[in-house]
């Protein structure tokens, strides 16, 4: 990770957080809305690995929590773990196939919805499981999957992996 790449990722994720809070979230489809930040964090993590992914997740979560005036640390915690896991998953899979991003975003969406449900419940702000699983999870999952491939392509273009790094990643697996 070079300083320029870190700056590029930080700017992109901050922009995504602002877009998410002021533009994407109000566009509700059947009680769900696309999670652009999650999809972007997972795409970056798949391309650049768990270290970059977890830092990107932490930064993006912090940006979302600040921009939406929400409880600090909540989104950071969930997105750090999502970024780390997606990075590990990316190391173990081929980058040419379209399936790993879709699988990672699918699992990541489930993790974010259920994880935020548990955290909010622990903070005394519970919502019913039926309210989360049906009306929120299903449309959010569908919308995130629609976003996945374009965002993943963008991430691959903006954060290309050097051949040497790729060989090292494969050797690790």
């Amino acid at each position: 990770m070079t300083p320029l790449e870190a700056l590029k990722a930080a700017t992109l994720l901050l922009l995504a957080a602002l877009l998410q809070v002021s533009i994407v979230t109000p566009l509700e489809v059947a009680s769900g809305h696309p999670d652009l930040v999650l999809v972007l964090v997972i795409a970056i993590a798949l391309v650049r690995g768990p270290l970059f992914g977890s830092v990107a997740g932490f930064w993006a979560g912090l940006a979302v929590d600040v921009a939406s005036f929400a409880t600090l640390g909540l989104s950071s915690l969930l997105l750090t773990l999502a970024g780390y896991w997606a990075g590990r998953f990316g190391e173990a899979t081929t980058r040419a196939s379209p399936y790993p991003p879709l699988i990672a975003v699918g699992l990541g969406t489930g993790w974010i919805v259920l994880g935020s449900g548990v955290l909010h419940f622990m903070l005394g702000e519970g919502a019913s499981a039926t309210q989360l699983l049906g009306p929120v999870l299903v449309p959010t999952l569908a919308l995130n999957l629609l976003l996945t491939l374009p965002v993943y392509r963008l991430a691959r273009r903006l954060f290309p992996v050097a051949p040497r790094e790729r060989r090292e990643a494969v050797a690790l697996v």
Partner: protein
Amino acid sequence: MRARAVAFALVLLSLALLTVYFRESSDGVLHGAQRIAVSVLTPFEVAGERIVRPFRDAWGWGSDVLNAKDENEKLRAEVEELRRQAILNETAAEENAELRRALEYVGGPRFPDDFRPVVTRIIVQPQNVFRQEVVIAAGSSNGIRRDDPVVTDEGLVGTVAEVTPNSAKVRLLIDQQSAASALVVETKATGIVQRGLSENTLSLDRVPKDERVEEGNTVVTAGTRVEEYESLYPRGIPVCVVASVSQRDIDAFKTIQCVPLVDFDSLREVIVLVEKRRAKR
């Protein structure tokens, strides 16, 4: 190994942030830092909200069209012809109508005497089902303080939860942490209005069983009743209409469900009530 250590450290940092933020008061260090960061981001959010408004209206309009599948071919053709014009006009017309309604309300007899209005836009809508909070484009530089009541011409919206110079977080009445002392207009029965059993509903709790409350009754804020426990809300702001009333032998109070008079799904502009007494100080 390094990645795992960094991820672990970031998780610990997130948990520390979460714990400190949750436990500290709203005057704490993290809340203060967040307010500064929000002040920096607010202009971008305001710009984003302005840019997206026509698209959001177009989106809403498109959704409405999709729901009208049974319309005949002639009507569809007319809708198609009007679509472009409607999208262009809708944003301006909606904003105009909302501001007009707000002005009529502010100048009308229903507006509380001891307050001055701050009419403002919502720039961030609720982000999830857990927290029913919005961010508005006005803050302490407009005289707004924490706990100021927020209304529309339809009724009570909520209270200001946090303030920065140019924005403020408003906790909606349908949030789990909101409550307001309330009064049934027709029978003078009093209780506490809180979030109801389902999304976007309210319940009127702690109404004794011997009080009379009927479907269709109007519930308004009770206002200050005891000097040492001053209510956050002025008296007489409409809150909801009673939808159902029941009572069980084992319960001490009636079970009353209400429909809010404010449509929380389509909130765009709100009015913050700033105490005149405080504004002069």
